[in-house]
């Protein structure tokens, strides 16, 4: 087993508990399941792990129509039928019509790969169950070729879920689990620092304060998350908005600049305008 340790990268701030889960998964060669609010960097984690450990990276994005079989291989029967009618010579070898899936590709990797199974909850309820044996033993059987494909090196499997569906117990039992909490102010400062190094202290402080204030507003349909904050700061920088604009007295009297990056729902913007209207009236 490898002795690699993941401890965050210069672009990704990993908390202690996240590192514990990822390292346990690397050491024991079992998948790690990552859950959390949207926009807290679940998908990015896998990329960063691959980069930090310098491993080949395979992504498998799950959609509602994805079947477990798609990750293993697909037998393109229609192409074979067509070829047979056209009298193509390739038709004799069934191998020509087996299309490899992401899992197979990862299994064949020369070096230990990182495999991301993104948003596993999007697929059908039975999907995780269909992958149990494959992820447990890291092998599967190809019926058409009558042979077993086995992983050369157990991949580091990172699975993300948005919690749209409950995952089956049998599946959960085989994973390590981590829930990415929404970062606290201290961690958030580190995250912003990592993305925009040398950001003016005042601007950062004001931006964060505004951001957490927005998050605290009761009744928002979609609270802004880390990725929205980062986008917003990018906009602030691009427009060269001074920290004073955020800090000034009329913060309570108008929407924060570039609010479109933070509030993604017209009802939320509306709610905000009403709050500001109330503030203004109270101030009088």
């Amino acid at each position, binding site marked *: 087993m490898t002795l690699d340790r993941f401890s965050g990268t210069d672009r990704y701030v990993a908390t202690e508990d996240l590192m514990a889960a990822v390292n346990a998964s690397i050491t024991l060669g079992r998948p790690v399941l990552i859950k959390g609010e949207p926009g807290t960097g679940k998908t990015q984690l896998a990329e960063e792990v691959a980069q930090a450990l310098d491993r080949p990276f395979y992504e498998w994005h799950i959609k509602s129509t994805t079947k477990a079989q798609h990750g293993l291989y697909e037998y393109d029967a*229609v192409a074979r039928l067509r070829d047979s009618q056209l009298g193509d010579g390739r038709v004799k070898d069934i191998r020509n019509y087996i299309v490899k899936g992401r899992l197979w590709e990862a299994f064949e990797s020369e070096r230990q790969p990182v495999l991301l199974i993104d948003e596993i909850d999007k697929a059908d*309820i039975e999907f995780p169950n269909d992958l149990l044996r494959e992820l447990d033993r890291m092998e599967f059987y190809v019926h058409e070729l009558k042979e077993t494909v086995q992983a050369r090196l157990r991949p580091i499997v990172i699975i993300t879920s948005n919690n749209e569906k409950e995952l089956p*117990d049998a599946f959960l039992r085989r994973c390590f*689990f981590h*829930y990415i909490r929404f970062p606290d102010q201290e961690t958030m400062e580190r995250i912003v620092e990592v993305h925009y190094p040398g950001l003016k202290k005042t601007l950062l402080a004001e931006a964060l304060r505004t951001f957490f204030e927005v998050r605290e507003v009761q009744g928002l349909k979609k609270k802004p998350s880390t990725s929205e904050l980062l986008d917003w700061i990018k906009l602030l920088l691009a427009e060269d908005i001074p920290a004073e604009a955020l800090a000034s007295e009329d913060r309570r009297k108008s929407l924060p600049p570039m609010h479109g990056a933070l509030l993604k729902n017209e009802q939320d913007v509306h709610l905000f305008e009403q709050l500001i209207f109330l503030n203004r009236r109270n101030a009088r």
Partner: protein
Amino acid sequence: MLVKFFYQLRSAGLPVSVTEFLTLLEAMKNGLGSGDVDEFYYLARSTLVKNEAHFDRFDKVFGDYYRGIESVFGPDPVQLPDDWLRRQAELFLSPEERQRIESLGGFEELMDALKQRLEEQKKRHQGGNRMIGTAGTSPFGAYGFNPEGVRIGQDGSRHRRGAKVWDRREYRNLDDDVQLGTRNIKIALRRLRRFARQGAEEELDLDDTIRSTARQGGLLDIRMVPERHNAIKVLLFLDIGGSMDDHVRLCEELFSAARSEFKHLEYFYFHNCVYESVWRDNRRRHAARTPTMEVLRTYGRDYKLIFVGDATMSPYEIIYPGGSVEHWNEEPGSLWMQRLLDNYGSAVWLNPEPEQRWDYTPSTGLLRDLMERRMFPLTISGLERGMKELM
């Protein structure tokens, strides 16, 4: 020793399996989680707990277990009852101070701080903890505490750093049926899935294509099948206005989740109790009403009936003709309820009020009896029980 921990987790209702426990031991054998207690805590949590809703419970058990170990090897831990602490705090803090603390993070924080203060103090004065029992009314005084010295408001951040991770119990509000978002509701509603193929033929049926191509002597014959849909039909009745205003958000979420989950969803609004007519559009509730009789005739018996309402009203509104607060009803609400229930075999009532409170409102009891006790709270676990009942 960890075996005991394992059983403690299980008796706390955490679904920890033997496999997971063995995984934890294996991980520890590989040198993980041996650095310090925090590291072990994180490792154990990610191995044994697979649902963030259980984090809080895990934290509690871990805290107890850890303190238990301390009591074997370390100094005697002082177990201070919370209400005792609370009273002490009330004795020692002026209302203004309390308010300041409240604004800084609430009473719970204060409790933690006080608890910790006591423990710190105890370490400095050997054997001092015995004083708690004997010092009578003023244990804080015995430890050299006075309201001025406490100054909890000022070093809120310092004590936070000192507190154990699991003792912070940051996952408290993720526990069980507190949070109910659209997504959660969808998960619960998903129990009501029964797939069937219906409608236009738009998917390639590979097996059938191959079979029929072979039968045609190799001439490609494409076969299509309709897409699979959830075949469950739902009739949703929503109570609107009055006491339901408190629950608008919850109902909104339920509604939007249900709407995307069921292909056949019909919804109607009513106020407090169902009478001879219901409506579809709240802005035109008086102009465009649908007679309940028509609903009964239009939608077949295979529809599943879901009422959503707090069932909080005067009992007259259910059992007497003319009891409605909005109009004169010729027949009592209970009769209309009965008609609906007779027509639709599977029905549930979802109540956004907490279950403990149901017994205090007679109308809730009345409706619950009418529903033959198929009333469930509008929480995740309630929804799941309800959906099970409907299947």
